[in-house]
């Protein structure tokens, strides 16, 4: 079974840390939804089979879409694919959009999961991040979703925000864990080049959090979520039993997915491709029946690097038998040879043919993954 990702590239305002592709003008929403339908048809045969296990509306801000647009897209998807009856169907939402009325409207649609971008419950943080909601509104949004019948709710948090102290982060976690959600994604703030917050760091206008505190925050996150019954399954993802995000997991298991809409990425097992970062170009190209995408065919080494990277980020780890079956004995030897020093340094474990990073390992996972890569 494969996955479908749909990128909704609109946001009412831009958050200061975000480098996802989205436009602030809502001018092209209707044309874009039409075009996504056309792309779905044009690329009907992209995936190896027609069975779909997960659908994910990401952004940008999918919760800006009126119900009719979702209906239009679902109609096309269900017309082209066999969507599994237990399929996980998620949309990303911003708290300010999740009114009882809006949620009520969505009930007749096939959604069974919502991922709410909260980032922080602290109003000073939220202002600095140029978010559109307050902490109280975030709490209310989750309640609204619960009342509307969503029983698989995920929230996004960011830690290591400017000026944030360890205690402040602890407070955030306590609030988050007291809300009755099933899933938490918690990301260390990344200063993406070119974003407003990155510029403020470059000009030293804000006070950043040092590496040691970031590390402490991460350990606290693991500790608190663990005690609250959440299990970590990826570097930044935590879920109650049975509530892992199946869609996101498929990225880490190298399950094929098709990405539709501007800037969306697709993966068919051996090649990756991505649509242009431009709503206008996307619409005009697709209207001429051309897919405006760049494509990258992965060499065997690159497929191996891809595999190492995504599997080591998960708690399921890297299965060496699978590695050998896919890439051969040489790659297996290479991988085991290079992980050795990290096992000795107690940053990774190797048992039952699986390599897993522990918390110390996750904290330096980029270094470890780079070391295992074949170039």
């Amino acid at each position, binding site marked *: 079974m494969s996955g479908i990702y749909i990128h909704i590239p609109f946001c009412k305002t831009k958050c200061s840390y975000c480098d996802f592709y989205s436009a602030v003008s809502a001018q092209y929403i209707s044309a874009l939804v039409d075009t996504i339908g056309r792309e779905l048809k044009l690329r009907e045969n992209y995936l190896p089979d027609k069975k779909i296990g997960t659908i994910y509306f990401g952004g940008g801000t999918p919760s800006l879409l009126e119900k009719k647009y979702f209906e239009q897209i679902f109609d096309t998807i269900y017309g082209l694919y066999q969507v599994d009856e237990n399929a996980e169907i998620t949309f990303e939402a911003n708290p300010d959009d999740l009114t009882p009325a809006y949620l009520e409207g969505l009930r007749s649609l096939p959604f069974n999961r919502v991922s709410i971008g909260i980032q922080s419950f602290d109003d000073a943080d939220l202002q600095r991040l140029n978010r559109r909601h307050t902490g109280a509104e975030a709490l209310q949004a989750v309640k609204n979703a619960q009342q509307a019948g969503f029983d698989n709710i995920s929230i996004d948090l960011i830690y290591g925000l400017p000026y944030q102290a360890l205690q402040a982060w602890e407070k955030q976690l306590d609030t988050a864990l007291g809300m009755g959600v099933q899933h938490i994604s918690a990301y260390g703030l990344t200063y993406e080049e070119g974003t407003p917050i990155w510029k403020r760091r470059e000009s030293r206008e804000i006070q950043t959090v040092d590496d040691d505190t970031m590390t402490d925050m991460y350990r606290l996150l693991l500790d608190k979520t663990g005690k609250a019954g959440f299990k970590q399954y990826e570097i930044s993802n935590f879920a109650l039993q049975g509530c892992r995000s199946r869609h*996101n997991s498929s990225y880490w298991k190298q399950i094929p997915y098709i990405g539709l809409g501007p*800037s969306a*990425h697709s993966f068919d097992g051996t090649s990756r491709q991505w649509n242009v970062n431009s709503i206008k170009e996307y619409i005009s190209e697709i209207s001429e029946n051309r897919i405006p995408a760049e494509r*990258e065919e992965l060499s065997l080494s690159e497929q191996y690097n891809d595999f190492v990277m995504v599997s080591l*980020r998960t708690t399921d780890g890297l299965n060496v038998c699978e590695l050998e079956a896919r890439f051969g004995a040489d790659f297996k030897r290479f991988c085991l040879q290079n992980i050795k020093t990290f096992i000795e340094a107690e940053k990774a474990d190797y048992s039952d043919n699986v390599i897993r990073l522990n918390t110390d390992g996750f904290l330096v*996972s980029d*270094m470890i993954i780079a070391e295992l*890569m074949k170039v």
Partner: protein
Amino acid sequence: MKNIRNFCIIAHIDHGKSTLADRLLEYTKTLAEKDIQAQVLDNMDLERERGITIKSHAIQMNYNLHGEEYTLNLIDTPGHVDFSYEVSRSIAACEGALLIIDATQGIQAQTISNLYMAIEHDLEIIPVMNKMDMDNAMPEEVEDQIIDLLGCKPADIIRASGKTGMGVEEILHAIVERIPAPKGDPDAPLQCLIFDSVFNPFRGIIAYFKIVNGTMCKGDLVKFIATGKEYDADELGILKLDMVPKQCLSAGNVGYIISGIKTSKEVKVGDTITHVKRPATEAIDGFEEVKPMVFAGVYPIDTEDFEDLRAAIEKLQLNDASLTFEPESSVALGFGFRCGFLGMLHMEIVQERLDREFDMNVITTVPNVSYKVYTKKDELLEVHNPSGLPDIMAIDRIEEPYIRASIITKTDYIGQIMTLCLGKRGELIKQEYISGNRMELIFDMPLGEIVFDFYDKLKSISKGYASFDYHMNGYRPSKLIKLDILLNAEPVDALSSLIHVDNAVSLGRRMCEKLKELIPRQQFDIAIQAAIGAKIIARETIKAVRKDVTAKCYGGDISRKRKLLEKQKKGKKRMKQIGSVEVPQKAFLAVLKLD
């Protein structure tokens, strides 16, 4: 023969020799329109890119004056002090020299040293004040300096510009009228002085010569007196922009010979060519062999590339006889070569050519000069390498090479320059005004103190105005010790250096600091220590990486992230693993970049 003029162009670096040569070639129509480009004689890629001359270049021009045809042989020379031996060879093939002086800069150190070389060989000097087109030219002041230096008349100095072509005709007149025609007897036994040789991948070694006496023809059986080897003169001719073959050449002429020689070692620059049948009884006075001044280990990053590196260095040597090498090995770096260079620029150029022309990625170790070590048994050892130093107990004394340096500067900077030179263990020998507010300072200094960064420092404290020239000036006893660097308690031989005892502690400290900057953080703490014998004199620690993690990695992030990490790994592969520590190439030259 009376219509031949042989001359070279000499000057301080960047005073415009090659540019003025362009104008002469253009004026005499030696270059076709299509061949014209700036500094056309600088034909090596590196010369063109850096805008400097590295090798001398000879070229022949024809010039008609008052109805007479003249043959003018021009040799453009390099200005950088590392290549001053090129100048001395060129001078030996000439009867006259254009001494170029930049009108915006005036007399500089190499102006003087090159002038003295030319005077020693009785060359007729034609002073040319260049760059007259520039707004900041100071013709009156520079004219005074030239008159002071040469004792000539103002009228003898030609004002010119390599940019506008001003003065070119006057220069050509002066060459014909002031420089004597070569002497020599075309019918005497053959004597040709070899003043240069180049390697051509298709033709083998091509030797450049000046015929002092006699006549040489194609097919003649000739002998190289110093090496004793005999060859057929397969081809000989004159040097235009390309080589132009001729049947015969006779006394006074400059030309080239191709005789099936394969390696540069077979040709000694300074040797004399004569006929086998009717040999000259005497060789012409040759040149002193060029001796390398600076030695450094050159190692392949990948130990498997050792043989490829040897092949590459051998090829470079074909064209660059001043480069020496012998195999050596290092605990830290494996097998490599100890190479001898004329100076730091030469070393940089060799390293760059290895990378560019042979795709050889190398590590160059801390350079040092060559020391004379006398043992208690009164043996003399030439030590080029810190690890070649015998046990301290066996050493009676060590002598290090000294230079005599000439520094020319505005008086404004005298104080700082004195401080710099004295800090480098210099001894002031003489100081005198050369004109108005300019002085020449003469220092005796250890060569080891100036090879690394002296020149850069001098330039920076004098805002680029001071110039510097030096020649070797014997050996003197010195208190030298070996400074070792340890990474995680393991000595890294490639980072050891020989240093004067007074400077050891400060150098050790600065090296540790610099290495801390250059070695990236790794998964363990890294201890960097400097030691003399068993005594640790400085220490720094590089803390282990605590955090290196990407927070988000979903569908759209994967390709970008993978490429980023692949790039990181590639970078690491270019580093050298020493024990458990990965050390980047540039760390081995850390000692050169200390402030």
